[in-house]
């Protein structure tokens, strides 16, 4: 099961790195791309990123963990949907989960 750790980001205080089970990394990115659009790799830093109005989904080339930065358009429903794609169980890690 995916777990997460809180990290600091000025954009949103509720920012976490989601650690995926190794066997689910590639399939999860495929699910994310299907839902939110293609990932883009920035030159130089090699950051793999999907941008949506609600989230920034970011990782290194290793694709794991995925940092999820919430944006202004983030809603509870959108967050729940994202958590499903990430195989993340909110009940297991309930702290600080308001969007």
């Amino acid at each position, binding site marked *: 099961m995916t777990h997460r750790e809180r990290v600091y*980001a*000025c954009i949103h205080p509720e920012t976490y790195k989601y650690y995926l089970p190794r066997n689910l990394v590639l399939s999860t990115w495929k699910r994310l791309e299907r839902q939110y659009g293609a990932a883009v790799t920035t030159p130089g830093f090699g950051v793999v990123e999907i941008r949506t*109005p609600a989230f920034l989904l970011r990782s290194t080339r290793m694709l794991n963990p995925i940092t999820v930065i919430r944006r202004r358009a983030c809603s509870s429903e959108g967050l729940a949907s994202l958590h499903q794609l990430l195989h993340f169980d909110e009940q297991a890690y309930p702290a600080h989960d308001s969007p």
Partner: protein
Amino acid sequence: MSAAQPSPSFDPTEVRARFALDYIHDRHRRLIAGEEVIVHCHHYNSRIQRTVEGAAGIDGKTIFRSAARNSFVRHIAAGFQDGDPESTRWAVAQELFAELGYGTLDLSDPSSDTVRQTAGHFVEGWGAAFNDEAKPVCTLAEGYIEAAYMAVRGESVEVRETECMHCGASSCGFSVRRGAEAWSPPAISERIEAVSTEADAELAESNIDENAIINAVVGLPIRGGDDGLIPAFGVYLANTPADFYNQVAIEFVEAMTECGQREIASRLLSEAGESCAMNTFRGIMDSAEWEGLVKPMLQNPEDTIFALVALSNAFGWGNWRITEHEPGETLEIVSFNGYEALGFLETRGRASEPQCWMLQGVSAGMMALVYGEGSFSERFGTYLADEHDCIAKGNSVCAFAVEES
């Protein structure tokens, strides 16, 4: 739609191409449309605004607005090309705002009495840091819109924000009042370049490949996306004219000096820099960019300081070099061309005191971030920086000494 309005068929890509970044590697300068810009994040920008506008006894909002007006009127005009119809010039003004990372401003109907903004860099900054203060926060946009009317039409207007997303509005609204007191774009100061590129002291060495970091940052598209915002390194970045920051800081200190508050003014500006270092750099150090490129270079804690300095150089803060560093104890940094010192020289001439408030605060903040312990508030002020030499005073470089307080 009148002929004066941005053409509905204007090509944003063509207009944006006028603002391609020109990075001067040997001086670590970032130019957009020929204007020097500095990369700072929403945290620093909103904090410096709050510092200036929140000071008692002075009109900080006017200082902030007029600095925006004066610096952007030239910047917007620099994006015009011979033969541009007025509609294209409005498109340039609109797209430059987004390109620089300030958000989405709708200038499609300049004959209207209202301009709207649907995303804002300062809205995000205040929302993240000062959510308890519900007041309109888009002062820079007010000045920018006034500058746009002057650059496009040569018209003096007064712009005030009447609704703000920071206060819960769905978009920000600005009133445009015609017949405002006439103003003219300020004369361009003669530009002063660095007087030296060599430090008296030997430069310290590290395991950091500064060129790799700088090239990676320069290669990043630090330009507004669909919403005119620039999310990178876990923060929202913006490209802001150096002239803007300089006018804000200089006029703030001058106004506070008239109130007998000079020391407080300089300390507040320095604290904004210190806070910037701790918040922005902490966000950067938790970012995927850091993880992907910088972290593999780190072999000891002091390398982190060198990496942060490399990033600072890529952001255009000044050609910084570390000359001495005792991990956890002391840091000596020189800057060959800090924008604060050069800006003061250009507009006020020789100074009697050092002028690099931001760099002074940042140098202390970096030490507190890397070597300090506890929460931010516990680390704040644990290191003190002294700018003992400053180009604005006539020294060949700006030099900062940091030690534990």
